[in-house]
């Protein structure tokens, strides 16, 4: 496909001499540069673009409309919990008292910030059913890594770190990666036909070498592990630990506390469940909460309260795994999650999960006659549709995903979990209205019809987006990772 230029880069839009502000002439002596080494002095042009303010504004507003984002349209990316991020969160996180606070500020002058960290930790522990927490990890996978290091440190203190971590074949790809990074060997077990952990398979691999079982609950098929208490008992029986990947916590907050299910460690994704932005809009935050026996191993410093209830940093943790972040983690993300939880309260938190599960099951009921469902168990906050029924018309899941873009929706998570051949993993979240869910369902149904009647429309999709179907193979094989800067710039 020929490349059509929709918007030039801001450098190409630059016109010499144009500016957004008139700076006064220099009215102080020019600085003496003698003390600056020759090779440190810029000789060429700075290369900053020159544009009027209005043109800068139009350029970036236009770019924002070319992209798809949760403020522009529905974004049902499974396992990512792309809920709307309330603007109140952003307002709070942009208060000068937070943004201008240096992390090394004397604790007597940063009490408010430490209090927020303490309260956020307490609220998250309440949701987890755990006794201690660290807010340091900067993302979900970082939390997994910290959590596994905590387990390793605990087991070492008991005599030996052990060798293996067990995980189901529906696990997030970050799980085996974190296991390897923490020095363990991942041992994968197959799921049952109902999408849940195969207890007999688990029994077959559990041993004195098992350090932990790493589970997502509900799992990546959106299915709640019903036998979780028995599973936990079996894992604890061999002296191993239960780790919960909290990616799908949005399904059960206020209803089920992972600690009471037997999980010893879990991580949260504040950027998923607690409404802070994802990815490029992040940064993320992956707090890790633990049961009492793992508390000595948390990263330092740990936020604790003294006898008067005053929060402070506790650095005296000789068994700590050390630091996993430069300072205390992504503090402004914590502010957003703190406000979100304060606005919701416990009842509100429960309602989040109620609506997340209801929305998902409503959407499933509308599309299930048109798409397959490999695992028939009733899911919770997300479901994995399978477009295999459309394969006989030459339609793959990517064609469905691309066509959804034409209808104005972001595509669901695709080709994951790996155990569903033509997976389309759909998570609507609690923040969407029935009208939006209906519009999405209509689009899915229309696409299933198009697959039979006019399959080429799907093969050519998307046609309504700024960029059409990309040659993904070529893009990955012949990588052009940045805009080539013209010589004359």
């Amino acid at each position: 496909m020929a490349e059509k230029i929709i918007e030039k880069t801001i450098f190409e839009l630059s016109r010499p001499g144009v500016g957004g502000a008139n700076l006064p002439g220099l009215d102080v002596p020019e600085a003496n540069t003698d003390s600056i080494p020759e090779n440190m002095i810029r000789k060429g042009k700075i290369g900053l673009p020159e544009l009027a303010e209005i043109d800068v504004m139009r350029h970036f507003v236009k770019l924002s409309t070319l992209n798809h984002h949760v403020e522009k349209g529905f974004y049902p990316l499974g396992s990512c919990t792309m809920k709307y991020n309330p603007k109140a969160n952003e307002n709070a996180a942009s208060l000068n008292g937070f943004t201008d606070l240096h992390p090394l500020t004397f604790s007597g002058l940063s009490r408010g910030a430490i209090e927020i960290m303490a309260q956020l930790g307490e609220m998250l522990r309440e949701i987890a059913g755990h006794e201690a927490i660290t807010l340091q990890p900067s993302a979900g996978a970082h939390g997994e890594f910290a959590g596994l290091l905590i387990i390793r440190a605990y087991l070492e203190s008991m005599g030996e770190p052990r060798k293996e971590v067990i995980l189901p074949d529906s696990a997030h790809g970050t799980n085996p990666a974190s296991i390897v990074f923490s020095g363990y060997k991942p041992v994968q077990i197959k799921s049952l036909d109902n999408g849940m952990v195969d207890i007999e398979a688990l029994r077959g691999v559990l041993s004195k070498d098992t350090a932990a079982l790493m589970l997502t609950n509900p799992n990546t098929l959106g299915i709640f592990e019903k036998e979780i208490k028995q599973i936990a008992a079996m894992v604890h029986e061999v002296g191993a630990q239960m780790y919960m990947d909290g990616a799908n916590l949005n399904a059960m907050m206020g209803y089920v506390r992972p600690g009471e299910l037997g999980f010893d460690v879990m991580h949260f994704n504040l950027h998923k469940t607690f409404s802070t932005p994802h990815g490029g809009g992040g940064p993320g935050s992956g707090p890790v909460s633990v049961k009492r026996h793992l508390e000595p191993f948390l990263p330092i410093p740990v936020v604790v309260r003294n006898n008067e209830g005053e929060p402070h940093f506790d650095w005296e943790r000789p068994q700590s795994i050390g630091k996993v972040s430069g300072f205390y983690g992504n503090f402004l993300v914590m502010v957003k999650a703190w406000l979100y939880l304060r606005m919701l309260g416990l009842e509100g938190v429960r309602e989040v999960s109620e609506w997340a599960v209801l929305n998902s099951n409503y959407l499933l009921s509308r599309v299930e006659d048109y798409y397959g469902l490999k695992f028939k168990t009733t899911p919770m906050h997300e479901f994995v549709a399978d477009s295999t029924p459309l394969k006989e018309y030459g339609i793959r899941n990517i064609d469905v995903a691309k066509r959804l873009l034409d209808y104005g929706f972001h595509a669901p998570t695709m080709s994951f979990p790996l155990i569903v051949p033509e997976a389309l993993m759909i998570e609507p979240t609690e923040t969407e209205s029935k009208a939006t869910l209906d519009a999405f369902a209509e689009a899915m149904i229309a696409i299933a019809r198009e697959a039979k009647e006019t399959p080429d429309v799907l093969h050519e999709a998307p046609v309504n987006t700024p960029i059409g179907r990309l040659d993904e193979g070529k893009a990955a094989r012949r990588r052009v990772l940045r805009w080539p800067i013209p010589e004359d710039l």
Partner: protein
Amino acid sequence: MVPENLKFTKEHEWVGVDGEIATMGISDYAQGELGDVVFVEMPVVGDIVAQFDSIGTIEAVKSVSDFFAPVSGEIVEVNTALEETPEIVNKEPYGGGWFVKIKLSEPSGLDNLISPEEYNKIIA
């Protein structure tokens, strides 16, 4: 249909034997399921491999998969053409898209492979 002169593994590798040299690649069905192949990570010539060991990875647009030695022996040649043009795997899975050549150390291991007819049943 799959070529009649080859043997297969359940992991979708094919093997063609010429004297003591076995040539290995992935089946047309496998390349279709993987989609556009963007990179193949090869073993090193001289590596001694055991049958059904993972010896490399295939990176496609949507997933990364291991591939396995269909026979035991020594890697005597890898298809360097795939470094620059991995798309040959998609275009000619049974021809120019071959992966490695292995000098057989245990020819009896060929009995552990499956026939074209059996392979056809697996992918049906």
